[in-house]
């Protein structure tokens, strides 16, 4: 797309110049990062290769005894429950914030710009801290509880969803909206009958993707002590039971792929 189109004659010099600088920066970053690793002082630690071998052999076969599967089902349910609660809270908070941040409501002017800018900054602050860092702070502040974990995931996710929603709502082509406006629709109606329907599948697709991420986030909340798939992975790793680790990993992968498949099917059915 970008490199194939004939650049405007005046821009050729700038194009080549920018490309060259960009390549230099990217290759420089690659070389710097690879060279800065202390390759000399033992990358694989003592016994590391034996552990790797044991880990790979653990796949044949993964642990499937009924007792352990009961543990797996309970852990999967915990993770799913936290992910669903977190993503629903994130949608409920992120959607209104995103709509205000997109500046689609209210009459054009400086006040609207200021409000939208403030909300955008707020969303940026929410998403700049990783969910597990939020979780560690919340567990220290509120104590260990499901609510603290759900809040820890929902805050950065509301920030991300809000940003994406506001960008999607902003990038809508203006012609159909102008039609609505000329027939006397208020900004709220333009939003409801114009903007939202036009980007609905994109919104849905991104929200589904975030739900998939929320599953992963809920799984790693084990790190602050909440039970779930990550917690069991940690326990099994600690006891060097690698075949159990594999079972848990495969269930986590299956869960994520299931959500991915569900999302694709829903979107295809809406679009066609």
């Amino acid at each position: 797309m970008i490199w194939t189109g004939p650049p405007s004659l005046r821009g050729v010099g700038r194009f080549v110049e920018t490309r060259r600088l960009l390549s230099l920066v990217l290759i420089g970053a690659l070389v710097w990062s690879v060279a800065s690793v202390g390759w000399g002082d033992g990358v694989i630690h003592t016994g590391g290769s034996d552990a790797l071998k044991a880990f790979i052999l653990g796949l044949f076969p993964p642990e499937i005894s009924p007792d352990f599967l009961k543990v797996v089902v309970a852990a999967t349910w915990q993770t799913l429950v936290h992910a669903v609660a977190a993503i629903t809270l994130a949608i409920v908070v992120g959607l209104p914030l995103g709509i205000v941040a997109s500046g689609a409501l209210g009459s054009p002017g400086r006040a609207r710009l200021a409000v939208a800018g403030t909300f955008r900054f707020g969303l940026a602050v929410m998403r700049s801290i990783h969910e597990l860092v939020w979780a560690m702070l919340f567990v220290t502040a509120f104590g260990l509880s499901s609510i603290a974990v759900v809040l820890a995931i929902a805050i950065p996710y509301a920030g991300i969803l809000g940003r994406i929603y506001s960008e999607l709502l902003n990038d809508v082509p203006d012609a159909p909206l102008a039609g609505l406006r000329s027939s006397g629709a208020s900004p709220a109606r333009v939003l409801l009958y114009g903007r939202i329907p036009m980007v609905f599948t994109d919104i849905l697709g991104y929200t589904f993707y975030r739900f998939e991420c929320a599953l992963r986030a809920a799984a790693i909340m084990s790190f602050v002590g909440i039970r779930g798939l990550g917690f069991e992975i940690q326990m099994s790793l600690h006891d060097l039971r690698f075949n159990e680790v594999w079972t848990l990993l495969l269930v986590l992968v299956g869960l994520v792929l299931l959500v991915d498949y569900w999302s694709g099917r829903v979107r295809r059915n809406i679009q066609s």
Partner: protein
Amino acid sequence: MKLPSERRISFVKGSFYGFLVLTVISWIYILAGSESGIEDFLSGRAWRNAGGFLKQLIGIDDSLTGGAQLAFLDLGRWIETAKLAYQTLLMSVLAISLAGVAVLLTFLPAARNVSNGDLGGMPLPALGVLYHLLRFIFAFTRAVPELVWAMLIVFFLSPGVLPGAIALALHNYGIVGRLSAEVVENMDPGPARSLRSAGASNLQMLAYGIIPQTMPQFLTYLLYRWEVVIRTTVVVGFVNAGGLGREFRLSLSFFQYTDVALLIMWYLILVVAVDVLSTVLRKMIRVD
């Protein structure tokens, strides 16, 4: 007998109600559970704890530190932790570099129109197998969270920047690999086909027909992922993978809360710096 369109609508409706039911059950399960913590929130105990923690974080309440200097007002501590911030930045760049190189080496056979010979070349059965294998590897590496990769990798590799970077690289390899393969699948086949009919070799087709169309999008994805990776470096640091994350966890468990505040400040500085840098580089990609 239902019409196909009716079946589609009922699938979407069913999904919607299914998710609604799941939501209600999840919230009831959490709020009714013994470790929900809802009583603490309602009785105000959680909020009082949080207020106390916040005071210790910003140093108003110095009962834990015994009146020692606040870490984030101490230039010496800033200089000491600068090394950790540097390591964190290095880890993020290394992770994205490793992921980028791995994707560059594998994204072509993972595109359906390349593996089935649609863009020229031979539709060998081996390519079909390779296509499915790569798609599975993308899905697997993507579905396992970075922190879990890191927990596994510190079993094999010495602690430091490298295991963290590899953990981040594996997860992002799956994400960027899939997106890049989809870019190839959705690209305009015209240039590649014209090159083929003009007698270009496979290598020439790659260089002039495929790479120029896909490279900008690939680099854009990579830079977007860099913005995410810098936020996650702290998390893989929790499992002895070096950088700010390890120090953050230690400070938190030793109740050195003003140190925690200092590390959060470093973290935010890195996040903002990477966001700005990534935006500048992405603008450079789009120059024409």
